[in-house]
Structures are given as structure tokens and as C-alpha cells.
């Protein structure tokens, strides 16, 4: 038994809702389809049942039969018998004028010429199996709770033991406990057949599916093993989607994906929102490419590495300040480099910025050896711990912010001012003449750090190295600056190397954490994972210490 979809296209008039879906599922496979609202998830599910109003093209092979060539009557005989679908639990998913039992009976009798008693027995067995209380068989849908209605719907779908089971948002609008029950029930229901779980609830997807496909604007962006994909998203859209989903395993604050879906554009559907797009992305649709069990549709092969540090070492007077450090920073992500003072964090930052020459190892920026020339500094910028000191006291705000442009001789006078103004606005600073004329000593700590950020932004860098950017600020200003950095990342796809000694802070801002001890990186991984299950004793002690500190100081709301 097999479901094979190739080049499936669904159209409403001119509007392509699905643009060439390829899928191959075998008995026992469970696939989750996730994606934003309007991505076409429901349409895909309905298309498999041939129930959508959209026009379908392509191939839809079920057990070798092309369903798109089937007559309506042939389809009808398959539906509910060999393929079934459970719809989102909405108030009217069940017919209000028939009892639960009647509706399950109907689902059975639609495909079996059995006697009434036999049908009823089977219906009751099913309802028992889905855990509906016997007292409730004879009740009407409006007398059932949301969870009970969902159970009835599941019983109806399972009535004829289908080979293909499609679940569309099966737990939406259920409370957490009921949801857990239903998920348990679904887990047993989905085994031993092909099951497809359509949802935007990633936790549901991860508990019910082995494979996961990310749908965007009618195209599959990424597909792979569920756990893998969640732990290590490779497509920019997948990462954005995961970032905007609250879960217990991610710790970073929620971020969104900038912009919204624009239907009907050419090229990669995601390109208007993609922060790493190239010129080809607007012209050509990326083909899905499979590598190590992961399928990605992206001209750049997924999220690209921005900065690669390979085996970098530096010795000062025989003392290993940085030893054999290897670390990759991907486009649009935040990596926190955590370690106590003296662990070599700042030395590494200085090496990255070309301020110190490493003894060995190499550094690659966008795949090329870093040469620390004008082109490098246009793409990589740094903000320092002490903003006031990093800005010359002889420059006023405007001069300070446009300084990099002046240094690089970029653009005309007017363009430089426009860029500076944009940078100031991005850093959420005023742009009135009075403020522009201020000098560093006339700025508060927070303002000064924002000016420093504006100055770093003015050349539209791709990477920001932030060395303890907030440690000199009071907590409230600190929170605002961090929020600003996150927003900038969301909007411009900025990558940030966030250097800090505070693992609690790192947890809130980073996608990945690298822990440094005496010049080496001792642990590295997704933030949630590193914090939840530290592999190295040193990380563990940092986490331990952070939670004790917060507890004794009584900082509220640092939930774990």
C-alpha cells in the first residue's frame, strides 16, 4: 500500500493554491504537514480525498491507481472506506440532527451491506475504542463536549479501517488536557496505516509523526525526519516558523517571519520574505533536493553558513587564549558564546574582527577566506560593551553614525545622511536636529548603545558581533536593547554572535549556544537542548549557578 503524489497542482481560477507537490508515503508512515495559515495544508488534505473545489492536475497514485482519473462514484467508494479524514473540531463537524451512534453507523453502512445489529455492534465497539462513555452514544452533537465530538469524528474515520488517514487540525480548540487525551488516542489510531497530520501545532506534529513537511504558499519547502527537522531546521522558512511557535523546548523569545505570504509570485515563493535571497530566487522556482534524508527546496541549499571559524588558535606568551575553536554561524541566527571572564571570548571576537592575528586556523565569510578589507567590514560589524567609549567624544550623533560611511567613502553626502537617518530610526532613536547634534556625554547609557547599534547598522551588515552589549546597562534598558536586536534580526535577517557570561540572558536571545572554557568550546547545540540537558559539567554548573543566582536575587519570571 502506497501513496504517491507527484506534481500535484491545485488551482482556484488563476490562483495556484498547490504548486507541484511531490510526496511518497508507505504503510506505517506518518507525515505531518505544517505551515502558516493559508499555506494550502487543508487543500492538500482535501485534494488527496478529491474533495477540494480546486482544479487538480498532476498525479495522485493511491495503491497504484491514479485517483485524478477516477469518477466521482469510484471516489465515493474509496472515501470513508480506504481513505478517511478527520476534520478540525468545529461546532458543526457533526450533523446536529443525528446522534453520535447514528452517525458512526452511517459511516459503516455506507460501505458495508451488513445487518442493522451487526452495524450497531461495530459502531459501539468503535465508540468504546475511541473512549466515548457508553452513556453518551445516544446523544446529539450539541450535547457532547468538544473532546467527545472529536472522538466521534475519529470513530467515524476509523469505521472501515482505512489505509490512509488524514487528520486536519485534529486538536485545535481543545484544552490542553483533552488535547493530551486525543493525542494519545490518535497515536494508536495512526499506526499501521499511512497517516497525514495537518496542523500548525508543532508539538502535535512532533508527537504524532515520523516525517514532517513544511508547506509554504502551496509548495513543500523542507521535508525530513520530524525530530531532526525541529532540532535543526535547514530552510529559512522552517526556522522562521519554528521560531514563532511557543514550545517547551525552545527558550528564545518568540519571533515572527517578517512580511506575509504574497500569493501568485514567480520564483521561490518565499523570496519576498527571505533574508538570504539572491537574484535567481526571484526568477526560478527552486527544485527540491534531497540530502541525507532531508529534502530542501532552496537555491542556496537552505540556510547558508555566514561565518565559519575553523580550528582557530591563539597563544599569548605560551598561554592558550583560544585553542582549536571551530564554530559556524548561519545566516539570520543568533549564537551565544558563553563563558566566564578570561575564557577567551573577547579574544575570539577580536580575531574575528581582524584586530588580532590568529596563530593557526582559518576564518571564512560567506565561503571565502576573510581578508578584513573594506568588503569584510561592510558585512561584519561589532558593538562593544562600553558604548560611550566606542564613540569618539569629538563626534556628535550624526557624525558618529555616518562615520563608517565616511571611512568607506560610500555614497554621496546626501545618501550618507539618508542612510544615517534610516539607521537611527531602525535603532529606534529620534532624528530631530537637536538629538543629532548631541555628543556622547550628553547621552544616557541606553541611548549611547543605540547610537552604537545604529552605527553598526548603517552599512547594512550581515553579521553583528556583540560583545557584552548590555552588561553596562540597567536591567530595564538592557531588556529594551535586547528586544531591539531581536527585532532587527527578524526584519533584516541579521546574524548575531552574542558574547556574554550570562547564560540566563543567552537563553532568551539565542538559537544556539556555544560554551567556552579556557579557550576551547566545550559544548555547542540548540539553546533549549543545551540548557535542558547540559552535556558538559561546566555548562551544567553555569546553568545551576544561574538558577541559584536568579532564585536568591529573586528575579521573577525566569521560568524553566
Amino acid at each position, binding site marked *: 500500500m502506497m501513496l504517491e503524489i507527484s506534481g500535484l497542482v491545485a488551482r482556484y481560477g488563476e490562483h495556484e493554491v498547490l504548486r507541484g507537490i511531490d510526496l511518497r508515503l508507505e504503510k506505517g508512515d506518518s507525515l505531518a504537514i505544517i505551515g502558516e495559515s493559508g499555506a494550502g495544508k487543508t487543500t492538500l488534505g482535501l485534494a488527496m*480525498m478529491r*474533495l477540494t473545489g480546486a482544479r487538480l492536475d498532476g498525479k495522485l497514485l493511491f495503491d497504484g491507481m491514479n485517483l485524478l482519473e477516477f469518477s466521482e462514484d469510484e471516489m*465515493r*467508494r*474509496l*472515501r*470513508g*472506506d480506504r481513505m*478517511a*479524514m478527520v*476534520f*478540525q473540531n*468545529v461546532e*458543526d*463537524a*457533526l*450533523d*446536529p*440532527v443525528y*446522534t453520535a451512534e447514528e452517525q458512526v453507523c*452511517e*459511516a459503516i453502512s*455506507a*460501505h458495508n451491506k451488513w445487518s442493522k445489529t451487526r452495524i450497531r455492534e461495530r459502531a459501539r465497539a468503535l465508540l468504546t475504542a475511541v473512549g466515548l462513555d457508553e452513556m453518551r452514544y445516544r446523544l*446529539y452533537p*450539541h*450535547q457532547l463536549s468538544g473532546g467527545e465530538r472529536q472522538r466521534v*469524528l475519529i470513530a*467515524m*474515520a476509523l*469505521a472501515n479501517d482505512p489505509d490512509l488517514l488524514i487528520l486536519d487540525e485534529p486538536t485545535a480548540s481543545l484544552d490542553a488536557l483533552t488535547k493530551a487525551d486525543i493525542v494519545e488516542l490518535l497515536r494508536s489510531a495512526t499506526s499501521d496505516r499511512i497517516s497525514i497530520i495537518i496542523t500548525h501545532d508543532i508539538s502535535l506534529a512532533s508527537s504524532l509523526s515520523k516525517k514532517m513537511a513544511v508547506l509554504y504558499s502551496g509548495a513543500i519547502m523542507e521535508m525530513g525526519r520530524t525530530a531532526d527537522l525541529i532540532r535543526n531546521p535547514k530552510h529559512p522558512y522552517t526556522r522562521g516558523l519554528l521560531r514563532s511557535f511557543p514550545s517547551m523546548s525552545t527558550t528564545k523569545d518568540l519571533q515572527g517571519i517578517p512580511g506575509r505570504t504574497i500569493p501568485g509570485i514567480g520564483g521561490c515563493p518565499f523570496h519576498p520574505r527571505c533574508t538570504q535571497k539572491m537574484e535567481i530566487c526571484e526568477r526560478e522556482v527552486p527544485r527540491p533536493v534531497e540530502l541525507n534524508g532531508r529534502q530542501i527546496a532552496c537555491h542556496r541549499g537552505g540556510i547558508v553558513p555566514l561565518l565559519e571559524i575553523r580550528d582557530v588558535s591563539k597563544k599569548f606568551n605560551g598561554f592558550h587564549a583560544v585553542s582549536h575553536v571551530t564554530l559556524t554561524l548561519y545566516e539570520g541566527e543568533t549564537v551565544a558564546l558563553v563563558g566566564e571572564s578570561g575564557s577567551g571570548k573577547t579574544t575570539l571576537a577580536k580575531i574575528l574582527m581582524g584586530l588580532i592575528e590568529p596563530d593557526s586556523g582559518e576564518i571564512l565569510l560567506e565561503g571565502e577566506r576573510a581578508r578584513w578589507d573594506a568588503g569584510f567590514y561592510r558585512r561584519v560589524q561589532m558593538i562593544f560593551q562600553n558604548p560611550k567609549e566606542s564613540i569618539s567624544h569629538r563626534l556628535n550623533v550624526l557624525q558618529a553614525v555616518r562615520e563608517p560611511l565616511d571611512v568607506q567613502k560610500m555614497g554621496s553626502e546626501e545618501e550618507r545622511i539618508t542612510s544615517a537617518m534610516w539607521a537611527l530610526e531602525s535603532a529606534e532613536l529620534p532624528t530631530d536636529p537637536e538629538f543629532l547634534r548631541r555628543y556622547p556625554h550628553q547621552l544616557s547609557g541606553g541611548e549611547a548603545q543605540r547610537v552604537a547599534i545604529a552605527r553598526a547598522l548603517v552599512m547594512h551588515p550581515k553579521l553583528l558581533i556583540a560583545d557584552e552589549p548590555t552588561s553596562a546597562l540597567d536591567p530595564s534598558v538592557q531588556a529594551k536593547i535586547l528586544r531591539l536586536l531581536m527585532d532587527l534580526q527578524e526584519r533584516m535577517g541579521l546574524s548575531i554572535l552574542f558574547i556574554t557570561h550570562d547564560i540566563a540572558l543567552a537563553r532568551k536571545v539565542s538559537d544556539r549556544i556555544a560554551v567556552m572554557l579556557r579557550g576551547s568550546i566545550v559544548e555547542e547545540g540548540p539553546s533549549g537542548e543545551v540548557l535542558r540537558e547540559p552535556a558538559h559539567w561546566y555548562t551544567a554548573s553555569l546553568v545551576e549557578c544561574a538558577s541559584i543566582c536568579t532564585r536568591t536575587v529573586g528575579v521573577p519570571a525566569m521560568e524553566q
Partner: protein
Amino acid sequence: MSSLLKRYDFIIKIDLIWLSNYVASFLLILILNFVLPRMMPGDPLHAIYGEEALIAMTPEMEAEIIKRFALDQPWHAQLLTYIIALLRGDLGYSYYYRTGVSDVILCFLPWTLLLTGLAFMISSCIGVILGIESGYRRGSKFDGFMLPIMMFLGGMPDFFIGIILLLLFGVTLGLAPLGGAMSPYAGHSGIDLVMDIAHHLMLPLITLVLVQLAPTYLLTRNAMLTTLRARFIMTAKATGLSEGDIRYKHAGRNSLLPVVTAIGIRVPNMITGALFLEIVFSYPGVGTLLNTALSARDYPLIQGVLLIVTVTVLTTNFLVDMTYTRLDPRVRYAR
């Protein structure tokens, strides 16, 4: 057990509220019947019976009526007599027919009930079926054909449709009788009698069915359009039910609910429609009686007709409400 009791208790309360509705309507009519004539200038006898009637009456009859309805007494005594008379089924005296109003009405009522009852059943069935088909296949040729016809038919005044049919089939083509409910003095019996009655009934019945078809059709169609969007239709399709089951058992059955409610609202409309058609076809029902009473200015008779029609309407409405609770489990159990 006690919760069960409570539930029944509750249902009874709701039914009382419902009933109070009918009672209110009924009282309204009684008050109108009682007060309206007595508001007119002149003595009650003149006001109630009108000049024409009094000319035709002998002084003894006048005295008898004054006594029977206590017309020389103060108004509360009159009211009491009025109610007592009503309870006895005494609706007053028809000077035109020279007998009691209730007797006159009882002669005419069966024909009206026959006409409206049949028309109601036929038009509801056809209207609902056409509405279901049209709504299910919206945008199809069938739908595109039915919808404008029904909208047009629904817009026409009922008595004019009757007039046209009468002129066409009765006057011009001579296919149908021009009036009456059966051929007088023909002495038909058995199957001949039935055929004769059917022959006379045909034209008024067809007209009334046509007139009543449009609202049922339009309402069913609209209800279908709404129901077809409900999720359970998708569930039914995904279950692999047959077209017919989806169309009738699920979509149709649910679309029936608003239609049945609206039938209640349409009953008065329908009965008045029947009255008008009876006049057009000179069919000896309550409508023709009303027309006669109007031209003869037989006021007690008009009042009597009004009362009977109201009672009929309210009874039908009550039955419809009852049906509705049977049809919709949400109403049946939610209370």
C-alpha cells in the same frame, strides 16, 4: 430522578410561555371583536349590526338580540355575556343567512380546510424538493431556470394569478368550472362525487399551490446554501456517503428546520391567500362567505369569520411549533 423531574418542569414552563403567545393573539382578536363595534357612535345594536341588518330585522328579533347579548347593560355585563356566549359557541346572529353565525361558518369551513390543507401539503413538498435540488445544484441550468421563475411567481399577487388561470382555463378554454365546489343538483355519488369535487377543486388548488410554492422554494434554497457550507457536509462526503444521502438526509434535513419555522409565519398568509382565491373562483369556502358578509354588511358574520380564521391560524402555528421541536434535537433537548 429529580433532575428528570426538573427538566420536565422546565419544559412545561417553556410551553406555557409559548402558549401565552397564542393566548395573547387570541385575546387580541377577542378584544378587537368586542371593543371595535362598541367604539362606534350610536347605540351598540346599531353599531354591531349596522343599518342594513336592522332594516331586515323585526322588532322582536332586535329585542331578542339585545337580551341575548345584554346590549342594554353596562359594558362589563356585556363583556361577561359575550364571553359566556362564546364559550357556548354562540358567535351571534347572521341577519343575511337568518341563522346563527357559527352554523353558517361551519357550512363553509370544510371547503376552506380542504383547499388550504391540500395546497399546504402539496406546495410544501414540491417547494422543499425543488428548493433542495436547486440549492444543491446552485448555478446549474436547473437552478438558473427555477430561481427567476420562482422569484417572479413569488412577487405576483395571489388573486391575480387566480384571475388569470380562471380566465384562461375557465372562461377561454372552458376546461374548468367557473365556480362552486361541486355541480349542483347533479346527484353524483361515490367515485363520481369525488371526481366532481376534484374537478371543481383543481383550479383553486393549483393556483394556491403555485402561490405558496415560491416562498417555500426560496427559503429552502437559501437554507440549503447555508447548510451546504457546514462542516458536517464535508464530513459526510469524506465518509463516502451517496449523493442522495448527502443531499436529503443531511443537507436537506437540516435545511428543513428554518423552513418549518417559517411555515408558521406563513400560515396566516396562506389562509388569507386561500380566502382571496375562493372569492376569485367563487369557491364556497370561508373566503366567499367573508365576501358575502362584506357586501351584505353582515358584521357579526365578519367577526365570526375573523375569529375562526384566527383560531385556525393559531392552531396550525402551534402544531408547527410542535413539529419543530421534534425535528431539531437542539430545541428538543436544550430546554
